C-alpha cells in the first residue's frame, strides 16, 4: 500500500482538477439517487441494501477523488458510527416494539395500537421503517470498511 502511494505521488496522478470537479458535481446526485432507491423500494426494484450501498459509494467516491480528510468533513467517523448503530437499532427496535405492544416479533400490523392507521397500512409503513434502518446500517458499514481497509486502520490518508 505504501509503495503504491509513493508511486502515485511521483507520477502526479493524485491531483486531477477534472476528476475533483466531476466528483463534486456528481456526489449530491448520487446521494439523491440513493435516497430515491431506498424510499421507492415499495414500487420499483431497490430497497435498503441497494440504496445504502449507493449512499456509501458516494462517500467512498469523495475519499477516492480527494482524500480521506475531505470525506471526514462530510461524514465524520463519529457520525458514521452513530448512524450505523442507529440503523441496526431501528430494525431491531421496530421488531421489539411490535412484540411489546402485543403482536408477534416484526409483525408490523400490531403497531396499529400506537397510531391507528389501519393494520394493512402499518405493514406497508413498517417495511419502510425497516428499509430506512437497513439503508443507514449498510451505508455506514460500507464507508467504514473502505476507510479502515484503504488506510490499514490509521484513518490518515487512504489511497
Amino acid at each position, binding site marked *: 500500500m505504501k509503495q503504491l502511494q509513493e508511486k502515485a505521488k511521483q507520477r502526479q496522478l493524485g491531483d486531477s482538477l477534472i476528476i475533483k470537479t466531476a466528483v463534486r458535481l456528481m456526489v449530491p446526485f448520487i446521494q439523491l439517487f440513493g435516497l430515491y432507491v431506498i424510499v421507492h423500494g415499495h414500487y420499483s426494484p431497490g430497497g435498503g441494501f441497494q440504496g445504502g450501498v449507493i449512499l456509501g459509494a458516494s462517500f467512498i467516491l469523495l475519499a477516492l477523488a480527494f482524500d480521506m480528510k475531505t470525506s471526514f468533513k462530510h461524514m465524520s467517523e463519529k457520525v458514521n458510527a452513530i448512524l450505523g448503530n442507529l440503523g441496526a437499532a431501528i430494525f431491531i427496535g421496530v421488531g421489539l416494539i411490535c412484540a411489546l405492544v402485543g403482536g408477534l416479533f416484526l409483525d408490523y400490523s400490531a403497531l396499529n395500537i400506537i397510531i391507528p392507521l389501519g393494520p394493512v397500512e402499518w405493514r406497508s409503513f*413498517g*417495511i419502510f421503517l425497516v*428499509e430506512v434502518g437497513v439503508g443507514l*446500517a449498510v451505508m455506514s458499514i460500507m464507508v467504514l470498511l473502505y476507510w479502515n481497509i484503504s488506510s490499514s486502520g490509521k484513518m*490518515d490518508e487512504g489511497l
Partner: protein
Amino acid sequence: MKTLALLATLCTGALLLYGTKDFPAWGDPQSPANSYLSPKYIEHAVQETHVPNLVTAVLGDYRGYDTMFETVVIYCAGMAVVSVLRRNRSQ
C-alpha cells in the same frame, strides 16, 4: 493438520452435493415451495401489505426475520474489520 482440514472440507462438500440430489428440479411447478407458498404470496401480498413490489413485501414483511439477520451479518462484518484494523494515533 492441513490434510485433515482438506479431508473434512471434501467430505462435507460431497455430503452437501449428495443432498442436492433430493432437491426438486429447477423451476419445478410441483415442488412444495411452488405449489402453495409462492401462489399465496402472489395472490395475497398486495392485499395484505399494500406494497406493489412483491419482492419488497416478501423481504421486509413475510421474511423480515431473515432480513434482520442479513443486516446483523453486515453489521458484524463492519465491527470485525474495525476491531482488527482500527488503530488510534497515540499507539
